[in-house]
């Protein structure tokens, strides 16, 4: 009886360890994704702020600034997408 309960405790302990490991991996992946989104968020905020100011100061060059701003946003967003892909690869692959 004692050996059965000991084995049961060991199995439950192993299950707990596996669940803890999975939970740690999930939280790490989510943390990495969150961190990966912060940097581009700051970058896009700065980029858009400067672009809006440039367009307001020189409305005649708004089209040119808008094109550059859009490309800047798209390239900055690529960093967040890379973080997202790393997240889905860690979490789901």
């Amino acid at each position, binding site marked *: 009886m004692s050996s059965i309960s000991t084995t049961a405790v060991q199995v439950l302990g192993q299950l707990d360890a596996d669940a803890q490991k999975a939970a740690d991996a999930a939280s790490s992946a989510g943390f990495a994704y969150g961190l990966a989104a912060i940097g581009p968020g700051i970058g896009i905020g700065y980029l858009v702020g400067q672009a809006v100011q440039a367009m307001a100061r020189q409305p005649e060059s708004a*089209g040119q600034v808008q*094109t550059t701003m859009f*490309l800047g946003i798209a390239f900055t967003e690529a960093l967040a997408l890379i973080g997202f*892909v790393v997240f889905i690869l860690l979490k789901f692959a």
Partner: protein
Amino acid sequence: MSQSAVNGERDLSAPTGDAGVDVLVQRLEGDSPVAAVVRDLIRRGLIVGPLLIAAGAIFWGSAGASSVAFGLGLILFNFALAAAMLTYAGRISFALMGAAALFGYLIRLSLIFLAVWLVKDASWIKIVPLGITIIVTHLGLLFWELRYISASLAYPGLKPKTKPIGR
């Protein structure tokens, strides 16, 4: 508010921020160069799409092909949504365009996350080709588009096609 301010011209009597610039009343006029750029991005994406899907089918089978197609559609939709938000908000005011860019970033990231989350367990999805497609398509289309972007005041969006001299 004066009529010039409504039309997007600088109104010196209006309450202004830094150095006389009022981003709340100024807005974009005319055609949007961003819409032209995104139309071009989508056209190029549709051109290379079959090749990418074929590559996905070769390396990962039918699930790989459908994953590549899904990832490509996701990226093109992301570009189109970004351009639409910036264009419509820019026609209201520059300040709203800034807000649309920032909140649009969050919204579009959330939509991509939601789209992948919904299909992650589907039998026709493989995560690795989907992830590779998202990164490669996004960066590849942007770098490809950079070759055709004009930064001149005359053509602020795409470069005009070169014409032979004398015609």
